[in-house]
């Protein structure tokens, strides 16, 4: 049988069901949010790592001139090479509509479908791909807007478009997820590749080193050996790609930042719920002050009484755990499924990392105990006499606020009473305000972050002053192609540029990650760069290069004014970094570099030629973009041009916005959770306030106050608290959102976001707080009104 003191704690929990439910729900939401986020990210990270390691990822990939299995076998036999695999990737496109094409990369699969490095696995349908069919990487199937069994029009640049049946799907974890890359990945056998016009030999060799696969120096050394071997075969090395850190999936880089951001938000939910725990324990202690006095009078030591109330806090936590653990298991599973879906990983079974359960237990037990310490110390240390006297509510009319309220003119007596009541329990009010204001601040900040993300995206899109971009598979004379483009209806101006892929060359001779190069006139009308450091290119400047800020994540030593070595078409050239621009890119996209056409031509020798034309249209809306794209596609194809891709700014925005969806959805869910915890806090506070004033309410009713008058006093108090919290939340959200935008922009996207305060969120939060305040205070008001005057006056 339980000792009476513990019986008391259990009964206190049971008899004050509303209060228990509020506190337990509040802690449970905090623990749930925290546990869900941490578990979701840990499990996703593990799943991503396991799936990626299961593909036997390449330690390095070397791009060179075309070769066959003989060279692959030589590489496989090289010193410290464990396995080697030849690869051929061909740029292609799939027709989605009359003038709508989807950028596609076609990979050549061995005829038996078996790969040993960067393993591609069968997913659904046929395997290996039958003749004249294609397998689509499962995550990119939706981008092809087709299903297994459908026949699509596929075209390799410069060759006849063919009708290709989608025979099934494949699973290739070595590639970045389609949601981030925005491309379709297809797999065909040699016959199909040749039928489409692609090369059936290899241009890349991917190999796995023997020994420590995590040792970057070892990998570089082996890569150097392989490079020598390839060079001896008479081929130049175009690029050597050594993933850093080794054995890490390309998308894994975003998870730590995501975990930090979401973990902090999850902790905030927990902190907000802590305020409610302090308020509740403090209200319980205030309400039971006389009981504490009696217990002291009959022999209870301070430690025994504090032990009882700590046990109450632990009991709240344990009850919250009962709800939070299964909920966070379900929540994290859904969260994992969502993130894993975005990253193209399978969450095969339901797992909850024991460390997360442990953290949840710690959070659910330790947080309430710490929160309870302040009120317990305040009340328990009172003498037996003070406790028996049962002082509960501070006297009125002594504080400055009370005096101020007394001076306010033109306010009805019930409203004046409501205002006074609001400030009676100042520390409780402070905690309620803190919880609700913090909830509001996080809500507005999350919405601001979302808005800033899209405004930055729009600014980035807007800095591209063109309406439609036409990319060709080969170089054309600009003087020949420009008149043809200007002849297309709707096109107003056209400007030619050149695209290429370049590589930074390090001091030790290794190359960094590829960079997308755009060579354009310095005084371009089609691009308005957002400079953050240095300057834009000058007319005629030949050795200057402008980089996007996200390059600094991979090449942190690069600064404005620095002379760097850049590899263009197998040759290394010195360029001076003259400036940095901000251009929003999804987390794992390559960096961007700009140089003048003159500068590029000086090294690449493409004078007067172009492979990309940017056009501006009369009207800049989505419909015009669509019709102009279709007209360009039709007329250029008819004129015999080898068109690779036509895309408009409208499409670019849709594709980019889609890639930021993950963050946006998670932030919205967390904001809602925070709003719920804040609402619970307000409901709890209003219940406590009304409970403590039960006798006072009885007196009001005894002297003639109607139900309506009592309700007005209580609801007005709730609304005053809500509005104060709203103002505070708005004020806190200003710096909070700025910090969040900066932190997330720099850490996740490598560029600072354009802070765009979400005023609409201020309005939405106002309505939410107003509704919450009314609902949160009407519930206790209804309970107070139900009591008869006799019952209320008898309340002890």
């Amino acid at each position, binding site marked *: 049988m339980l000792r009476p003191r513990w019986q008391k704690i259990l009964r206190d929990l049971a008899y004050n069901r509303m209060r228990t439910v509020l506190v337990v729900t509040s802690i449970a939401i905090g623990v749930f949010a925290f546990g869900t986020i941490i578990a979701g990210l840990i499990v996703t990270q593990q799943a991503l790592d396991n799936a990626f390691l299961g593909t036997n990822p390449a330690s390095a990939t070397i791009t060179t001139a075309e070769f066959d299995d003989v060279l692959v076998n030589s590489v496989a036999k090289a010193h410290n090479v464990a396995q080697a695999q030849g690869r051929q990737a061909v740029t292609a496109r799939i027709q989605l509509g009359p003038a709508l094409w989807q950028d596609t990369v076609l990979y050549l699969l061995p005829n038996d479908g078996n790969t040993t490095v960067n393993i591609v696995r069968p997913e659904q349908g046929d395997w290996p791909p039958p003749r004249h069919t294609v397998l689509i990487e499962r995550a990119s199937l939706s981008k092809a807007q087709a299903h297994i069994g459908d026949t699509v029009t596929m075209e390799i640049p410069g060759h006849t478009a063919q009708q290709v049946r989608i025979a099934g799907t494949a699973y290739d974890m070595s590639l970045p997820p389609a949601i981030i890359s925005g491309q379709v990945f297809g797999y065909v056998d040699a016959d199909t590749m040749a039928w489409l016009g692609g090369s059936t030999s290899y241009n890349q060799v991917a190999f796995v080193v023997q020994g420590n696969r995590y040792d970057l120096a070892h990998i570089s050394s082996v890569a150097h050996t392989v490079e020598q071997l390839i060079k001896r075969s008479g081929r130049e090395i175009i690029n050597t790609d050594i993933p850093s850190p080794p054995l890490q999936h390309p998308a894994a880089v975003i998870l730590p930042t995501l975990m930090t951001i979401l973990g902090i938000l999850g902790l905030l939910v927990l902190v907000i719920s802590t305020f409610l725990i302090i308020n509740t324990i403090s209200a319980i202690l205030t309400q039971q002050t006389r009981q504490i006095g009696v217990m002291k009078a009959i022999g209870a030591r301070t430690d025994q009484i504090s032990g009882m109330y700590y046990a109450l806090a632990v009991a709240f936590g344990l009850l919250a755990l009962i709800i939070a653990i299964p909920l966070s298991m379900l929540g994290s599973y859904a969260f994992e499924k969502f993130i894993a879906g975005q990253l193209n990983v399978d969450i095969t079974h339901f797992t909850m990392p024991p460390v997360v359960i442990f953290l949840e237990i710690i959070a659910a037990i330790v947080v309430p105990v710490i929160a309870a310490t302040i009120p317990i110390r305040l009340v328990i240390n009172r*003498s037996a006499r003070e406790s028996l006297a049962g002082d509960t509510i501070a006297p009125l009319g002594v504080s400055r606020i009370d005096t101020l309220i007394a001076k306010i003119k033109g306010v009805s007596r019930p409203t004046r009473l409501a205002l006074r009541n609001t400030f009676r329990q100042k520390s409780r009010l402070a905690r309620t305000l803190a919880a609700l204001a913090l909830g509001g601040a996080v809500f507005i900040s999350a919405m601001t972050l979302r808005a800033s993300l899209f405004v930055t995206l729009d600014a980035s899109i807007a800095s591209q002053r063109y309406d439609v971009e036409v990319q060709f598979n080969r170089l054309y004379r600009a003087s020949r192609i420009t008149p043809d483009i200007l002849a297309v209806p709707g096109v107003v101006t056209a400007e030619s540029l050149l695209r290429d892929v370049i590589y930074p060359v390090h001091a030790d001779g290794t190359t960094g990650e590829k960079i997308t190069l755009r060579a354009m006139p310095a005084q371009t009308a089609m691009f308005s760069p957002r400079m953050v450091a240095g300057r834009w290119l000058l007319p005629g400047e030949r050795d200057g290069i402008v980089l996007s800020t996200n390059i600094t994540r991979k090449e942190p030593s690069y600064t404005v004014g620095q002379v760097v070595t850049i590899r263009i078409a197998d040759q290394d050239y010195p360029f001076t970094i003259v400036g940095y621009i901000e251009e929003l890119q999804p987390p794992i996209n390559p960096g961007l570099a700009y140089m003048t056409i003159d500068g590029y031509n000086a090294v690449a020798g493409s004078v007067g030629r172009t492979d990309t034309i940017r056009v501006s249209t009369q009207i800049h809306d989505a419909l015009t973009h669509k019709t102009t794209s279709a007209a360009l596609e039709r007329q250029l194809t008819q004129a015999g041009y080898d068109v690779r891709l036509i895309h408009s700014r409208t499409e670019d925005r849709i594709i980019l916005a889609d890639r930021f969806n993950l963050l946006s959805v998670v932030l919205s869910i967390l904001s809602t959770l925070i709003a719920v915890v804040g609402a619970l806090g307000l409901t709890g506070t209003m219940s406590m306030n009304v409970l403590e004033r039960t006798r006072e309410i009885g007196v009001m009713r005894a002297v003639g106050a109607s139900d309506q008058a009592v309700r007005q006093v209580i609801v007005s108090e709730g609304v005053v608290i809500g509005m104060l919290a709203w103002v505070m939340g708005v004020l806190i959200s200003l710096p909070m959102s700025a910090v969040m935008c900066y932190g997330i922009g720099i850490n996740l996207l490598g560029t600072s976001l354009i802070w765009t305060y979400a005023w609409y969120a201020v309005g939405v939060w106002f309505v939410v707080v107003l509704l919450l305040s009314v609902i949160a205070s009407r519930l206790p008001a209804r309970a107070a009104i139900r009591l008869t005057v006799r019952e209320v006056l008898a309340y002890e």
Partner: protein
Amino acid sequence: MVFDWLKRPKSVPTPVADVPIDLHAPIIELDAVVKAYDTAAGPYVALKGIDLVINRGEFVAIVGKSGSGKSTLMNMITGIDRPTQGEVRVAGTTITHLDENSLAEWRGRSIGIIFQFFQLLPTLTVAENIMLPMDFCDFGSESERRERALALLARMEMSEHADKLPMALSGGQQQRVAIARALANDPPLLMADEPTGNLDSRTADAIFTLFQDLASQGKTVVMVTHDADLSSRAGRAVTVTDGQIVNPERNIA
């Protein structure tokens, strides 16, 4: 007899003050006790140099008007409050020097306190309320505590109410439970603050008789009251007026 005293369980530790009883030895000694409070209106002296001796087995009524200082005097004896000056010695312990925790422990073993408004914990059953002081003071084993609580309730003729919550009982019944709770740790001294103040005259009379019986069986009973009729039936009445005792030596019975 209805109010036969209970034999204390063998495992129960001997209370600090429960030395061999000498019915004429002092159990309460107050020496020049002064109690002053700081109030909004300035310092207020509630007790002005009280000297008082109460012997074991006495049934003493402390009487006085409202605000005379009688409750403050009770608080000095029970250690619920501390004197500003002077010394208080109760059941062989000088309590003036004890800290709050030691005082609580000492109080639990040496004094049973009965309040005007009963002050039973509303969420505990009647039996659990009685077991609570035993729980705090580690009095007896778990099963002995329940046994003792039921025996005390039987003595108070309240056995059938053992598992009810206090709110289900009348005022008189609650006060009987409060007396049983005060006796839970078998203290030598019972202090009652206006124990009949909230009861009708018939119930008040029954409660008073209960105190008389307790006193006749060796317990020292000190009762604070403003009821002159009741105080006249006690063994001795100590009248407090304006913070001073005006008749320390007068014996009624």
